[in-house]
C-alpha cells in the first residue's frame, strides 16, 4: 500500500477542523473544511501551478503557487528565480495563512461609537471614499493642504511611493515612514552621494543590493557584516546566497559586528559583540588603522576618489582649479612629482602624482587633502580607545580588520543597525569611506557594483519600473517650492529630501502644538503604527488631537482599533500583480487570487485622488494627466544626475497600473510588449532581458563612455567616488542635490541650523551605561527569521514557533538581576514599560539586552484581552524607545537602539497573551462560504480624464 500514499491519505483531519472563531469584530465563524489540503485521491479537480513572486518581506523570492478551484492550496519556491533559486522561507510559506486569515479586512468599514470601541459598519468603496474625500476637501478648504498627512511602512506588500504620490498630488508635504530615517534612508542616501550609483547600488544586502553575492563563482574571499544579518533578514534570498558562498571549497571568511550572536555570527571567523550604539567609534578606528598601516588601495584612491583633492578649510568644499587659473571643472591636488599645486582634470592626468595626505599652501591658505581631513578626524580612535568605547578586545578588532583588509577580494556589507541611532549619517559615510579606501568599487567580490549598465548601454533594458524604493516616480512635478520649505523637519534634516518624507518627531510636535501648523487628518497605510514608531505612547497620547484617521491594511491592528475612523481593506501579496526585476530577469508577480473587496494599495491612493479631483482639487486632477507630471526637467551637474524623474500619472484601473509599472517594456523587448505577454510566456522562467554575462560586468567606471570618449566615471559631481563628502555639507546648506520641485532642482533652501560634516564623527549614545541611572542595561534590537517588521503576528504556524517577545540576557547579567531563563520579565525605560520572556544566553554581550518588535493581535479581541491597549503595550519594545532629541543632523534619526533599560523578573503572564500552540487555532485559514468572491463595481475613475481636454 505504500506506493499509493498521498499527502493526507492517513490524516484526513482538517487544518482547522471545527474551530470556532471569534474575530476582532466578532462576526466570523470558521466552517468545517480541509482548507488547503484536498486529497488528490478523492478530489479530481485540476491543480494549476501559478508562478508568482513573494512579497512577505522586502526580499522577492520566486514562488510556485498551487491553485485548485480558485483557492491557493500550496506554496513552494520556484527554482528559476536567480536570487532565491527555489528556496522559500517561513514568512513566504505563511502566505496562505495570511491570505485566508479570518481577521482579514474584507470590506471598507466606518467606525460606529467611540474610538477604541471596535464597532464597525460596512460601507461600499464608493461610499467610503466619497465620505473620506469630503472630509479631505473640507480640511483642504478650511486649513490648507498641510492639514492632511500620510504615512506608510515596510511590511505587508507596500509600494512605498503611493502615499508620497498622493501627498504630492494633494499639495501636502508631509508623509512619513517609521523606517526611513531609522532604516535605509541614511545608508541609501549616503551611497548615492558618495558612490553615485543607482538608487539600489549601496551596501545594504537586505535591500536587494550586493548582487555580487548571488554568484558562487564570485572571487570574494572575505566580508564584513556590519550590523547586517542576511541569514535572518531574508533567509531564502540573502540567507541562501550567504550559505552558498560559505559552502564553496574556499568558504567565506567573515567578520560579524553585532551585539547579538546572530545566525551569521555563528558562522563567522570573528564576532565583535560591540556595545549598541558605538559603531562609528569602531569604524573610525578601522579607518585610522588602515591609514596608519597603509592597507588602503593607494592607486585607486589617487585616481578614482576625491581623497587627494585639496580642501578649503573655511568652506569645507574641495578647491576647483579656477582658483589657480585653471578650469572650474577641474579640481586641485598637490603633485609630488613637481612639488607644486596642480589642476586635476577628469579622469586623471598621468603626469601627476597626486598626494593623498598632507596640507599644502594654495593662494596663501593652508589646504589639506580630503584624505588628511579624514585622517585627522579619526586620529584619536586607536585600537585601545575603540576597544574601551565599544567593550571589545583590541587584538580581536585588529584581527577583524586584517580579515577585511588583507584579502584581495573583500567587501563590507552594512546593515540596518546603525540607522537606528543619531550617529546614523556618520556610520553610513564611514562604511562607504572604508570601501572607497580599499578600492572595493565595481571590482570582483565587492558590494558596490553597477551591474546592468553595460547591457543598458548596448540598448538592452528590463523595461520595467524596477523594485527600488521610489520606482514609480513620485509626481515631483506637482511639488511646489513652498511645500519643500514647509515639510516638517526636512529642512533641518535635509537627507529626508531624497525620500520626500517628513521627520516623525517634528510631525508629532506639530500635531500636539499646532506649530508651525496643525496636521489634522491622517491617511495611514501600514500595519501597526503603535508597534512601529519610537516611543509609541507619545503617539497614542496625541490621537485625540487628530480629527480623522483612515487606516488601510490587510487586517486590523492596534492602530485600527485605537485610532481609525475608516478601514480600507488592502490586498495580500498573493492578490497583487506587478512585474518584478530580479537581476537580469523580469518575473511577473501574479494576481493568484483576489478575495472580498480588497484593493491594491496604489489603486487605493488613486481612488482617493480621483475623488478629490471630482471635488475640484486641481493637483489631483493634474496627477492623472501624463503631460502634467512628466516635464523631464532633469539636468547633470558634473556626473551627478539631478532633476525630476519622468513622472507616471495615476492609474485608472488595475490593468493600467500594471501597465505603468511595465511602462517601457515593449520598447526594449518587442517579444513581451504587455504584462500579459510576460505572464503568458515567461511566468515561470522569467524573461531574460540581458544574458547573465552581458549583465554582470565589473568596472563600468573605467569603460569608455561613447558620448564623451572618456571613462564613465561615477555618478557624482566630480565623477570620482567621493568619500570626502563635501556634497553632504552642500546638502545641509542648500538642499542640493535632492531639493526637487516644479522648478527643477533648487539650491536655495533655508540652511540647516548645523553644518553637516564631510567626514564622520562619533556621538556617544545620549543615554549610556555611564549615566549612573536606574537603567543599567543597553537595549538593542534586530530581526528574527520568521517575522518581517510588525507583520505575521497573526499567522498560527509562526506564532506557535515564537508566541511571545523574547529578551536576551547574558548569563552574567541574569545572575546580577535575578533573571531566570524562560521567565516573564518587565522591561522599563525612561519612556515606559513592557514585558517579554527571558532567554538567558551568552549570545548577547554583557551589559546589553536584545528584544525584537512585537504586538499581540489576540488582545484586540474584546473577549480575551484585559484591555485594548494591551495589544500594543504588552510586549512592544517601542514603548521603551526614544523619539526625542538628539537626532541625526543629516537624517533626523532618533534612538531605537543604544538606550538604557532595566529588567525585572515578574510572576505569570502579565497580559495573558497566547503562549500555547493551540491558542492560535482561531486564526487558521478561512474556507468555503466564509470567502466571498470579489464583486465587480462601477469604474471609480469614470469621470477622471487622462489627457488634457482639447
Amino acid at each position, binding site marked *: *500500500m*505504500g*506506493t499509493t*500514499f*498521498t*499527502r*493526507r491519505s*492517513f*490524516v*484526513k*483531519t*482538517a*487544518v482547522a*477542523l471545527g474551530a470556532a472563531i471569534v474575530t476582532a469584530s466578532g462576526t466570523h465563524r470558521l466552517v468545517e473544511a480541509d482548507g*488547503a*489540503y484536498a486529497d*488528490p485521491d478523492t478530489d479530481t479537480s485540476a491543480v494549476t501551478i501559478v508562478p508568482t513572486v513573494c512579497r512577505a518581506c522586502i526580499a522577492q523570492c520566486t514562488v510556485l503557487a498551487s491553485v485548485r478551484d480558485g483557492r491557493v492550496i*500550496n506554496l*513552494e*519556491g520556484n527554482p528559476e528565480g536567480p536570487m532565491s*533559486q*527555489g*528556496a*522559500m*522561507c*517561513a514568512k513566504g*510559506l*505563511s502566505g*496562505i495563512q495570511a491570505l485566508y486569515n479570518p481577521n482579514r479586512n474584507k470590506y471598507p468599514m466606518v467606525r460606529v461609537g467611540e474610538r477604541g470601541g471596535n464597532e464597525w459598519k460596512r460601507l461600499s468603496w464608493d461610499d467610503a471614499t466619497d465620505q473620506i474625500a469630503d472630509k479631505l476637501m473640507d480640511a483642504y478648504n478650511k486649513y490648507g493642504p498641510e492639514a492632511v498627512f500620510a504615512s506608510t511602512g515596510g511590511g505587508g506588500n507596500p509600494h512605498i511611493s503611493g502615499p508620497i504620490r498622493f501627498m504630492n498630488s494633494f499639495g501636502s508635504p508631509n508623509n512619513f515612514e517609521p523606517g526611513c530615517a531609522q532604516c535605509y534612508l541614511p545608508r541609501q542616501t549616503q551611497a548615492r552621494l558618495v558612490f553615485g550609483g543607482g538608487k539600489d547600488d549601496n551596501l545594504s544586502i537586505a535591500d536587494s543590493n550586493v548582487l555580487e553575492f548571488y554568484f558562487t563563482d564570485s572571487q570574494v574571499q572575505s566580508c564584513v557584516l556590519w550590523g547586517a544579518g542576511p541569514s*535572518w533578514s531574508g*533567509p*531564502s534570498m540573502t*540567507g*541562501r546566497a550567504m*550559505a*552558498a558562498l*560559505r*559552502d564553496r571549497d574556499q568558504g567565506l571568511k567573515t567578520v560579524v559586528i553585532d551585539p547579538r*550572536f546572530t*545566525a*551569521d555570527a*555563528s*558562522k563567522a571567523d570573528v*564576532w565583535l559583540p560591540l556595545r549598541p550604539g558605538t559603531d562609528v567609534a569602531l569604524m573610525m578606528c578601522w579607518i585610522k588603522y588602515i591609514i596608519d598601516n597603509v592597507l588602503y588601495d593607494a592607486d585607486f584612491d589617487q585616481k578614482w576618489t576625491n581623497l587627494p583633492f585639496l580642501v578649503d578649510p573655511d568652506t569645507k568644499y574641495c578647491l576647483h582649479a579656477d582658483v589657480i587659473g585653471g578650469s572650474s571643472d577641474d579640481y586641485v591636488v598637490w603633485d609630488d612629482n613637481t612639488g607644486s599645486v596642480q589642476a586635476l582634470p577628469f579622469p586623471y592626468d598621468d603626469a601627476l602624482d597626486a598626494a593623498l595626505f598632507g596640507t599644502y599652501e594654495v593662494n596663501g591658505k593652508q589646504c589639506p587633502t580630503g584624505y588628511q581631513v579624514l585622517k585627522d578626524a579619526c586620529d584619536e580612535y586607536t585600537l585601545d580607545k575603540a576597544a574601551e568605547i565599544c567593550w571589545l578586545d583590541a587584538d580581536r578588532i585588529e584581527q577583524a580588520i586584517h580579515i577585511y583588509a588583507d584579502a584581495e577580494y573583500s567587501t563590507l556589507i552594512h546593515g540596518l543597525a546603525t540607522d537606528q541611532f543619531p550617529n546614523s549619517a556618520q556610520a553610513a559615510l564611514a562604511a562607504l569611506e572604508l570601501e572607497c579606501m580599499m578600492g572595493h568599487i565595481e571590482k570582483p567580490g565587492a558590494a558596490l557594483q553597477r551591474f546592468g549598465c553595460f547591457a543598458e548601454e548596448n540598448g538592452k533594458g528590463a523595461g520595467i519600473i524596477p523594485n527600488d524604493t521610489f520606482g514609480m516616480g513620485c509626481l515631483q512635478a506637482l511639488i511646489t517650492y513652498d511645500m519643500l520649505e514647509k515639510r516638517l523637519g526636512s529642512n533641518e534634516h535635509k537627507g529626508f529630501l531624497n525620500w520626500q518624507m517628513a521627520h516623525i518627531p517634528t510631525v508629532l510636535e506639530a500635531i500636539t502644538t499646532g506649530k508651525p501648523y496643525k496636521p489634522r487628518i491622517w491617511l495611514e497605510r501600514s500595519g501597526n503604527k503603535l508597534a512601529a514608531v519610537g516611543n509609541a505612547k507619545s503617539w497614542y497620547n496625541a490621537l485625540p488631537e487628530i480629527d480623522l484617521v483612515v487606516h488601510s491594511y490587510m487586517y486590523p491592528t492596534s492602530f485600527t482599533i485605537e485610532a481609525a475612523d475608516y478601514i480600507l481593506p488592502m490586498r495580500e501579496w498573493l492578490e497583487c500583480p506587478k512585474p518584478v526585476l530580479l537581476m537580469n530577469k523580469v518575473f511577473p508577480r501574479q494576481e493568484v487570487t483576489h478575495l472580498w473587496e480588497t484593493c491594491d494599495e496604489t489603486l487605493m491612493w488613486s481612488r482617493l485622488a480621483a475623488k478629490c479631483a471630482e471635488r475640484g482639487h486641481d493637483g489631483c486632477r493634474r496627477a492623472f494627466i501624463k503631460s502634467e507630471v512628466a516635464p523631464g526637467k532633469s539636468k547633470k551637474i558634473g556626473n551627478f544626475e539631478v532633476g525630476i524623474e519622468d513622472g507616471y500619472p495615476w492609474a485608472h484601473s488595475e490593468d493600467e497600473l500594471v501597465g505603468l509599472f511595465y511602462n517601457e517594456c515593449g520598447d526594449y523587448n518587442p517579444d513581451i510588449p504587455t504584462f500579459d505577454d510576460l505572464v503568458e510566456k515567461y511566468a515561470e522562467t522569467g524573461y531574460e532581458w540581458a544574458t547573465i554575462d552581458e549583465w554582470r560586468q565589473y568596472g563600468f567606471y573605467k569603460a569608455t563612455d561613447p558620448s564623451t570618449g572618456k571613462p564613465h566615471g561615477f555618478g557624482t559631481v566630480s565623477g570620482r567616488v567621493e568619500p570626502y563628502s563635501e556634497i553632504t555639507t552642500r546638502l545641509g546648506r542648500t538642499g542640493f542635490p535632492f531639493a526637487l520641485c516644479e522648478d527643477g532642482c533648487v539650491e536655495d533652501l533655508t540652511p540647516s541650523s548645523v553644518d553637516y560634516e564631510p567626514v564622520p564623527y562619533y556621538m556617544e549614545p545620549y543615554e549610556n551605561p555611564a549615566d549612573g541611572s536606574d537603567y543599567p542595561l543597553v537595549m538593542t534590537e534586530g530581526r528574527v*527569521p*520568521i517575522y518581517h517588521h510588525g507583520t505575521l503576528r497573526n499567522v498560527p*504556524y*509562526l506564532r*506557535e*514557533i515564537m508566541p511571545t517577545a523574547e529578551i536576551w540576557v*547574558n548569563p*552574567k547579567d541574569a545572575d546580577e538581576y535575578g533573571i531566570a531563563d524562560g521567565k516573564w520579565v518587565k522591561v522599563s525605560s525612561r519612556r515606559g514599560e513592557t514585558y517579554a520572556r527571558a532567554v538567558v*544566553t*551568552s*549570545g548577547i554581550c554583557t551589559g546589553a539586552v536584545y528584544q525584537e518588535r512585537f504586538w499581540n493581535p489576540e488582545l484586540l479581541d474584546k473577549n480575551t484581552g484585559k484591555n485594548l491597549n494591551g495589544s500594543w503595550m504588552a510586549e512592544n519594545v517601542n514603548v521603551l524607545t526614544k523619539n526625542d532629541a538628539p537626532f541625526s543632523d543629516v537624517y533626523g534619526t532618533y534612538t531605537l537602539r543604544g538606550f538604557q533599560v532595566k529588567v525585572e523578573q515578574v510572576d505569570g503572564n502579565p497580559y495573558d497573551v497566547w503562549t500555547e*500552540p*493551540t491558542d*492560535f*487555532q482561531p486564526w*487558521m485559514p478561512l474556507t468555503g462560504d466564509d470567502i466571498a468572491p470579489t464583486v465587480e463595481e462601477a469604474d471609480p475613475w469614470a469621470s477622471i480624464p487622462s489627457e488634457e481636454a482639447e
Partner: protein
Amino acid sequence: MPHNAIVVNLNLCTGCMSCEIACKQENGVSLGQYWNKVFRVGPQGTFPDIKQYWLPTMCQQCENAPCVEVCPTGASYRDENNVVLINHEVCIGCKYCMMACPYGVRSWNTDEKVVEKCTLCPQLTTLGKKPACVHNCASQCRYYGDLDDPDSDASKVLARFNESDIHVLKDEGNHPSTHYILSEKIGTWEMGD
C-alpha cells in the same frame, strides 16, 4: 532496496524555521504537532568565544526501528521502499512507538487519535520531487536521497566531508539513517554518535 534518508548540513543551517513551516504546510500538520522540529544547540563556550548551531529533527529512519518492533498492530511498519511509516487505519493510539522512539520525533494527532511522523513526503518523491523541507530549505542545506547510491544528493554531500564532520543522533543499536554534517569550527556535536 533503496536507503532513502535526509542529510542536513548544519554548517549552513541558520535556524530560519523554513523547514518546519514547509513540512506543516505540505502535510497539514496541526498546531502543537511536529513532524519536523528545529532546536537551537548552544551557545557552547564562554562569551565571547561561543559557538551555536541548529538541529532540525525528524524521523531518523532507523535501520533497526524500535517503533516497528514495539507496535502491537503493525501500524508502524517498513514499506517496500525501506521507509518507516505509520498506517493510520491500523494504529490504535497505544503510543508504545512514541515511548520506544529514542528521539521523540513522533507526534500525537489529537483529532485522529493516532501517531504521526515524517514520511519523507512520498507524495512528492514518487513524482521525482524532493520532500518539502528539502525543496524549500532557505539555506539549501537539506539533502534527500539513497545513501547507497553514490550519485544521490545525500551521498554526494556526505562524500565532501571527513568522517569526523559526519554525525548521527545517539545510536543505541537502532542505526539512524539521518545524517548531520557539523564541523568543529561551527559547533561541537552534542548528541552522541
